[in-house]
């Protein structure tokens, strides 16, 4: 076995190193996503065939060849199937390579998985963390070496992630693997990762980096041309970090970003870029397609179909990148094009054309069939005259004569397509009905709340229906009668890819259709124009003039959030009779966390107090004043804490005015009384009232309602102060 030999030779390169701590790896045999539904309802993703071999076998073969000695396979969804596969495979009986399975039934994320593994206490040193859908042929020697050396110098260097150059398309903003574009900032000297932004929000035209990043280094590299290979070299601390931060779920979105943001612990993440070797992860149908092609075109050597690295296939490579198993029944007139793999025991009828496709084992393909760019798994029956372009057909599917699959279709296990039936683009067909919404909510950590309305055309939904309607209908579990797949058809057509947060075409096996591209280009251009209007940087000279709308929104949202929090705190204090000092502490911490002034606190507290008074049952204005008096007398200590200077007192008066005009109109008739009350209780000093009056003097008449209401009181105050002056 070539791969095995390779592993052995690598092992001997630094025997002492490996002798001390056996190199361990954690393989997550569950991607905790729903991108491969409906297929993954019946079979775990890691067991799906990738060029006629289960994905996990690629990962395990690579781990073994890279010198990993102990692999912990974490199984969650369909764990029995994974364990059964491993038991029947030869992975359990390899020398110098132990595979241990860890089973869990309640993990919903990578974070849960790692926490569980931490509890098992099986990891003793640096380990490789990958998921079971990774295809790679990279050597781990160098990256492990780098990681260890960094660890010696700095124990905070807990993780090294592997990246590879891959420039995303500027139009679709995604890589050829169908993953979203990724923005990273890396220190070019130390390779430390400083910033990581996937699932970029394109509405924001800029990336913000903390200026302190440049404080102690002279340069930072920003990258948009790298792809995350999801191969991580981790120190044991990573597991305990997941345990400490029990809310970490996603390796990237939570863990990695959490570490980057948190500067208290000072944990550091580094990157390792590979140049000539291959590493990619099957994340969606598009990457399934892209990686299959890479395997056929031998980028992943030695993990290619004609090298026996697993199982007992005896495929041979022929010219033009054609791989044919030894026992196939191919008609003389059948044409098999380049870059095609034909599995064992498959029969191909007359005049059938197959190109750029993978056909599994034991399929029977009738005459006059045309298959292009498609993935046909095992034991599929395709009757005469069928047409398949850029589709995935799972095990046991039967396509009756003349059926047509348009690009992007996915047929799950044992689906039957009726005669002459045409399955429209991007349809997903399964024997299982589409799960209800609640089911997908379990995975809500991952399946992004469907903010972007997915676009799909399904069987009965005519294209002219708006997206909104489709989504609504999808929620009421529609049961598709089997006859919907043509005469003798069997299966439900799913309307929207579960968790598909983006338009269907992005992640489909089918190439992006030209008209879609044109549409996106148009959108990009519109964006550009928009960016020029709105979010582009204002000229630095005019920075202050332009106020950003979104910033403003955020601020006002902040305001109400802060007020609500203060109010809740205050009400709790009233209910539980908490001491004023304690309330002050709480409000102060709120103030700091929302970055507010003490005047804001005074306003918010006053607002809460008045609201409390208002909510006390009352029948007349005088009763309201009484209630208010009570509240103010009880809580003036709290309010006064925030009224250290005159501006804050004015703020309170203004706030009161606002309330009388808007939220609590009941107060408006008694404005002057309450103002007097505040003065009497020494909450507000007379200077504040006089200043407020002065400020309002220039204001509109409509703005002066309350000034006039309080006129007599103000007049009295003025006279009183004049008298005082005279006395002096």
């Amino acid at each position, binding site marked *: 076995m070539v791969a095995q030999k390779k592993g052995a030779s690598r092992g001997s390169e630094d025997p002492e190193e490996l002798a001390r701590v056996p190199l361990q790896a954690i393989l997550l045999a569950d991607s905790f996503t729903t991108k491969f539904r409906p297929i993954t309802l019946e079979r775990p993703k890691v067991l799906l065939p990738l060029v006629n071999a289960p994905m996990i076998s690629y990962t395990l073969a690579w781990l073994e060849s890279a010198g990993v000695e102990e692999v912990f396979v974490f199984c969650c969804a369909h764990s029995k199937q994974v364990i059964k596969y491993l038991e029947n495979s030869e992975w359990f009986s390899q020398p110098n390579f132990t595979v241990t399975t860890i089973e869990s039934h309640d993990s919903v994320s990578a974070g849960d998985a790692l926490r569980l593994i931490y509890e098992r206490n099986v990891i003793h040193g640096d380990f490789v963390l990958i998921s079971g859908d990774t295809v790679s042929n990279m050597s781990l020697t160098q990256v492990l070496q780098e990681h260890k050396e960094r660890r010696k110098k700095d124990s905070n260097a807990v993780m090294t992630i592997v990246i590879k150059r891959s420039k995303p398309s500027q139009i679709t903003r995604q890589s050829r693997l169908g993953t979203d574009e990724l923005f990273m900032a890396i220190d070019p000297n130390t390779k430390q990762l400083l910033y990581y932004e996937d699932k970029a929000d394109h509405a924001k035209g800029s990336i913000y980096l903390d200026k302190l990043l440049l404080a102690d*280094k002279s340069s930072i590299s920003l990258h948009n041309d790298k792809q995350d290979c999801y191969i991580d070299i981790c120190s044991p601390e990573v597991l305990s970090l997941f345990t400490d931060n029990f809310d970490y779920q996603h390796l990237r979105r939570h863990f990695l970003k959490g570490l980057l943001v948190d500067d208290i612990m000072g944990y550091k993440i580094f990157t390792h870029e590979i140049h000539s070797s291959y590493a990619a992860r099957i994340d969606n149908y598009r990457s399934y397609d892209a990686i299959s092609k890479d395997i056929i075109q031998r980028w992943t050597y030695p993990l290619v179909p004609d090298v026996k690295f697993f199982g007992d296939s005896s495929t041979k490579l022929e010219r033009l990148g054609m791989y044919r198993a030894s026992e196939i029944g191919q008609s003389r007139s059948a044409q098999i094009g380049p870059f095609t793999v034909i599995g064992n025991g498959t029969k191909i009828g007359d005049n059938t054309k197959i190109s750029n496709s993978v056909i599994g084992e034991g399929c029977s393909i009738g005459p006059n069939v045309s298959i292009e760019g498609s993935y046909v798994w095992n034991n599929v029956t395709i009757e005469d005259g069928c047409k398949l372009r850029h589709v995935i057909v799972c095990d046991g599917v039967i396509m009756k004569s003349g059926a047509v699959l348009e690009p992007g279709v996915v047929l799950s296990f044992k689906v039957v397509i009726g005669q002459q039936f045409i399955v429209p683009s991007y349809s997903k067909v399964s024997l299982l009905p589409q799960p209800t919404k609640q089911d997908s909510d379990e995975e809500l950590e991952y399946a992004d709340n469907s903010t972007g309305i997915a676009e799909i055309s399904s069987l009965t939904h005519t294209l002219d229906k708006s997206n909104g309607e489709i989504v609504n209908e999808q929620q009421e579990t529609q049961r598709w009668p089997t006859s919907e797949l043509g005469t003798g058809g069997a299966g439900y057509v799913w309307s929207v890819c579960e968790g598909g947060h983006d338009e269907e075409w992005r992640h489909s096996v089918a190439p992006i259709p030209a008209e879609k591209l044109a549409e996106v280009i148009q959108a990009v251009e519109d964006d550009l124009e928009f960016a020029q209007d709105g979010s582009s940087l204002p*000229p630095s000279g005019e920075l202050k003039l332009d106020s950003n709308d979104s910033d403003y929104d955020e601020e006002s949202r902040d305001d109400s959030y802060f007020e609500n929090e203060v109010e809740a705190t205050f009400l709790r204090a009233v209910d539980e009779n908490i001491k004023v000092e304690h309330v002050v502490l709480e409000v102060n911490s709120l103030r700091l966390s929302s970055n507010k002034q003490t005047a804001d606190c005074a306003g918010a507290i006053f607002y809460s107090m008045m609201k409390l008074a208002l909510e006390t049952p009352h029948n007349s204005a005088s009763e309201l004043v009484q209630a208010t008096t009570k509240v103010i007398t009880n809580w003036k200590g709290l309010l006064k804490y925030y009224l250290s200077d005159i501006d804050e007192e004015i703020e309170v008066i203004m706030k009161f005015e606002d309330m009388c005009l808007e939220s609590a109109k009941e107060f408006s008739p008694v404005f002057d009384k309450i103002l007097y009350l505040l003065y009497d209780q020494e909450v507000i000093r007379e200077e504040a009232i006089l200043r407020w009056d002065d400020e309002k003097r220039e204001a509109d008449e409509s703005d002066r309602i309350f000034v006039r209401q309080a006129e007599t009181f103000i007049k009295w105050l003025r006279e009183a102060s004049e008298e005082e002056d005279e006395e002096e």
Partner: protein
Amino acid sequence: MDFQVVVLAGGTSKKLVPLVSKELPKALLPVANRPVISYVLELLELSNLKDIIVAVEGKEAHDCVEHWTDEAYIDRLRIKVERVPDDVGTAGALRAVAHLLTAKDILVVSGDIVSDVSPGAVAAAHRRHDAVVTTMLCSAPVSGPSDSGSSVAKDKGKKPGHYDRIGLDPTKQFLLYIATGTELEKDIRIQKSILCAVGQMEIRSDLMDAHLYAFKRSVLQEVLKQKDKFQSLKRDVLPYLVRTQLSSEVLLNGVPQPEENGHEKSSYQNNEEMLSQILANSSTASFHELYALGSRCSFPVRRTHKCCVYIASNSKYCMRLNSIQAFNDINRDVIGDASHLSGYSFSAQNNIIHPSAELGSKTTVGPHCMLGEASIMGDKCSVKRSVIGRHCRIGSNVKVVNSVVMNHVSIADGCTIQNSVICSNVQLQERVVLKDCQVGANFVVTTGSECKGEALAKKEK
């Protein structure tokens, strides 16, 4: 070369008081006994850039500079000294001289640069890429300007090492991002569109904008005209051009190029020309062109312009005389480490003593010193790492260390001068001790005074 040069010579900078005065504007401050502006002018001459406009603020300053350049360069360079309004910023100064600009490209250089980086190389880089703007970058002083000498820095409180933030593409030819001045206080904000187009951007804080720019004239004039709020080239015009490089507005407004081409080209022709240019060019197209072409690879769909950089090599010298500290440093460097800049030939003792200067007995002039024409020194004096101007009279037992003494200064016996600048016509009476001082022109320091870290000057009448 079809280049016009605008030298922004400023006026009497407030930062340099008391060194500057109405008679001695910033441009004429002596560096190794030559006006600082002569370094720029001669550097330009070396690159065969002879069509020069010098923009000066203030009437007296203008007259002084004009007088001096007329005398010094009458046969060698075509210099026109223009007076520009005060306090209009660099962009304002350019607006004021815009009517004189005719060449296809304009080189704008600050008059206070002392450097040996060839402006010709910057101009060539500009032309090579057909850029809208090319800026020269040099490495920023490692840890603030104070580190280069033994002198104590006054502004040590300032964060060292942070001058500009500059974003470059991987080939280090294009400028993708620049932040200067107050923007350095904010977080780094990078436009995604530019980053996406390039793929990789390096943000550097160890480079500094050296205030030498090449502009396409049509664009420069257009920007100055449209954006009348722009004050500074460095803080407004350059960041604006960098920001809009992938959604160019400057060429959108149909800046005609009739002078160059004789007729206005239709955009169609331009596009075709550009395509053929790309195809013909054996080197790969820059990201600007690729971006402009979009995916369809037919006609450019987006308007872009290029902002280039010329990065001076580390071994080159480039300093701006914009503070008193810099004045001291530059003077020391020009007769010391960067002596090739001075244009003088040094003696075997590594110093320059004018043949007409007289030295008393037991007087030593150390290496890295300069003693100007007809200056007289008494007995037992010692001069170290200092520049002494013309016609100075220096008594006996005088020590001058790390200082600049301008012309016609008289220093009486027993004075000690350290880390100081003595302007022209100053009189130091006996046993004066100066440390870290600046003495303005015509000032008299009385017998026995001891000063430390002071600026001594006559009050302006």
